[in-house]
């Protein structure tokens, strides 16, 4: 995958904009997912994921081709989300959607007129609840938890994405886990 991406990046650098479309196709789901789990809102996640790809395109000449592209791309996406969270007004939560539900409904592929089996409803509620608790984490813990447990990235990769020392990443993961444990222990 990395080799293919590098080939496409070289094409983009030569002015072939369409090659960037292939890069978007390869990474759109993962970037969207990072944004969605960071922000807890589909609409905002789409905005931020789009912005991440636009920034990657505009700055592609600054990308060091020797490095892993996904690390660089995820860094752009997480930084955008962290900035967005910090800029949010406290009253944001008053009109926020219930996090976690919309995306799941859309992709559960159940016909609209079919009644949901009970366990699916429970599962959707549980998923919404988990997302809500992730959304309550301070952004510095949220980023590491999303990258570690939803994107399943290694501690070293997370350290590179967030440009933080490995020790700091570990501390944040530990605190994030403890904070979530307190919220989710009676589930």
């Amino acid at each position, binding site marked *: 995958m990395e080799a293919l991406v590098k080939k496409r990046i070289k094409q983009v650098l030569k002015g072939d904009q369409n090659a960037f479309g292939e890069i978007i196709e390869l990474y759109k789901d993962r970037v969207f997912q990072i944004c969605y789990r960071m922000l807890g809102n589909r609409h905002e996640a789409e905005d931020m994921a*789009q912005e991440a790809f636009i920034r990657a395109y505009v700055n592609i000449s600054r990308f060091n081709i020797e490095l892993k592209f996904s690390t660089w791309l995820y860094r752009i996406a997480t930084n955008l989300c962290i900035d967005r969270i910090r800029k949010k007004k406290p009253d944001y939560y008053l009109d926020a959607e219930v996090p976690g539900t919309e995306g799941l409904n859309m992709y559960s592929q159940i016909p609209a007129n079919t009644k949901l089996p009970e366990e699916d409803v429970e599962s959707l509620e549980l998923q919404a609840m*988990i997302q809500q608790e992730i959304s309550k984490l301070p952004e510095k813990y949220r980023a590491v938890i999303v990258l570690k447990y939803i994107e399943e990235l290694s501690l070293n990769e997370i350290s590179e994405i967030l440009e933080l020392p490995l020790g700091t990443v570990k501390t944040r993961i*530990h605190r994030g886990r403890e904070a979530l444990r307190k919220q989710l222990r009676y*589930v």
Partner: protein
Amino acid sequence: MTCPTRIIEYMHEYLDEEIEVNHREELKKHLQECEECAIHFHQLKKTIALVQSTSHIQAPASFTENVMAMLPKEQKRVTFRR
């Protein structure tokens, strides 16, 4: 709680798969003796399982076309020709 704070640290080392053998042994022994810490450890593992159980979601349809339509035109070509 009278348990040494290092027990919680060992739990996290274990969860990061970076625990040393002697820490692992001490943790294991402690968890067999201390119910409170055993529950704590169980809750941490359950929390991780819950977070991991969230469905993987996909980018909206037409995401790529939308981004492509928003890309600045010609910019790369100009820099390249310089």
